[in-house]
């Protein structure tokens, strides 16, 4: 076991982890932040997407130890982060949420996309969200939601 320090949604935590534990496991099981979902657990679905130092990553295949000292933003950050809150509202307004399982990951991927490119084309939106699978909506509603934010 070893200690790492993470700043999660602006709050500093010192956490005792197993050496090879994933960041997803730390967030959900050690910090109780269950907004971040586990779909496939192997980097294919994007349900576990979070931002580490501003970059979107799949937390299910991210060694927690490598995040030591990093800034982490998860969907729970929506409470304090107006940018995330706007994205969440746009998803609600456009019916881009059905069962909602993919939504936390989609919202985080959207956040990363818009940070990097505030005026994406349709093509760029689809490419930006290509790492996030949704089994309910058919994606158009999400593209519309993102477009409404440009």
């Amino acid at each position, binding site marked *: 076991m070893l200690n790492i320090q993470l700043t999660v949604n602006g709050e500093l935590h010192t956490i005792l982890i197993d*050496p090879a534990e994933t960041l997803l496991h730390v967030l959900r099981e050690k910090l109780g932040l269950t907004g971040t979902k586990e779909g496939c657990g192997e980097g294919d679905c994007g349900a576990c997407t979070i931002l580490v130092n501003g970059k979107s990553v799949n937390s299910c*295949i991210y060694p927690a130890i490598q995040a030591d000292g990093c800034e982490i933003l998860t969907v729970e950050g929506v409470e304090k982060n107006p940018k995330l809150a706007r994205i969440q509202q746009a998803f609600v307004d456009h019916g881009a949420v059905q069962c909602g399982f993919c939504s936390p990951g989609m919202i985080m991927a959207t956040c990363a996309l818009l940070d990097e490119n505030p005026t994406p084309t349709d093509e760029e939106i689809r490419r*930006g969200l290509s790492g996030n699978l949704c089994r309910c909506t058919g994606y158009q509603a999400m593209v519309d939601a993102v477009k409404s934010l440009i």
Partner: protein
Amino acid sequence: MSMFYQPLTAEEAIAYLARENTMACAGGTDLYVNRKHGKFLDKDYVSLDKLQELKQVTKKADGWHVGSMVNFACAEKLEIPGAACLAMAAAEVGAPQIRNRGTVGGNIVSASPAADSVPALMALDAKVMLRSVSGERVVPLTDFMKGPGKTDLKPGELMTEIIVPEGKGSSVFSKAGKRNALAIAVCSQAVYLETENGKITEIRVALGSVAPTAVRAYRAEALLKGTEEKALTCAEFKAALKAALLEDISPIDDVRATKEYRQTVAFRMLMHNLSVLWKEETVC
């Protein structure tokens, strides 16, 4: 339980890798999938994540030295003359989340026959630099790749850099998969081309997902060298080229595609890539 070392310098990383039962962990995008399937659970890991020296891209006399820990988000923005195929291949890797973590070195060492960056680097005649406590060696990438999941990486070695020679020609990368993002290639291909007075003076073709490792299509290259563009419209030449290419590759049937489909795609891709490059070559 596994140990997880986090060295800050390549020197230190090499010292850890010299220990029994250790393996390197780059971005973890392959290792952590393997772990989920019960593989490598008994290993100790040496994280390369903090090695800033392996995240640099520098130009030297023998070409561009791309650090093995350069991730695909960075590689897709590289502007190495003649090496557009590398940036294009990097842009095709996974999805943004994977490109932010997956590294060029990791992609090579994992040695998936479908790795996107490997054919691109092979078409560029890249070499890899390997360091261990006992010294350093440089190996052509074509010799380094040994089979699915197998490379010439010796115990205790760390891949530090990939050396990409600067070319005066142009290159291109194409990939066919079941969907655009996160799809494992059914066939991928990189072509590097130089022409002079309307003739091909240098050509390197490399393919992924059609053999146990990415492969160079030496027979097809030999036929193409010295030819003019109009040869590509001649049915006889095309038939000979296709035959040569199919000898260069050895695709199999699997869940993603049949052998015949891969053969057809490989040849069409070659014709397509050649016409794209020919246009680029004649414009500049």
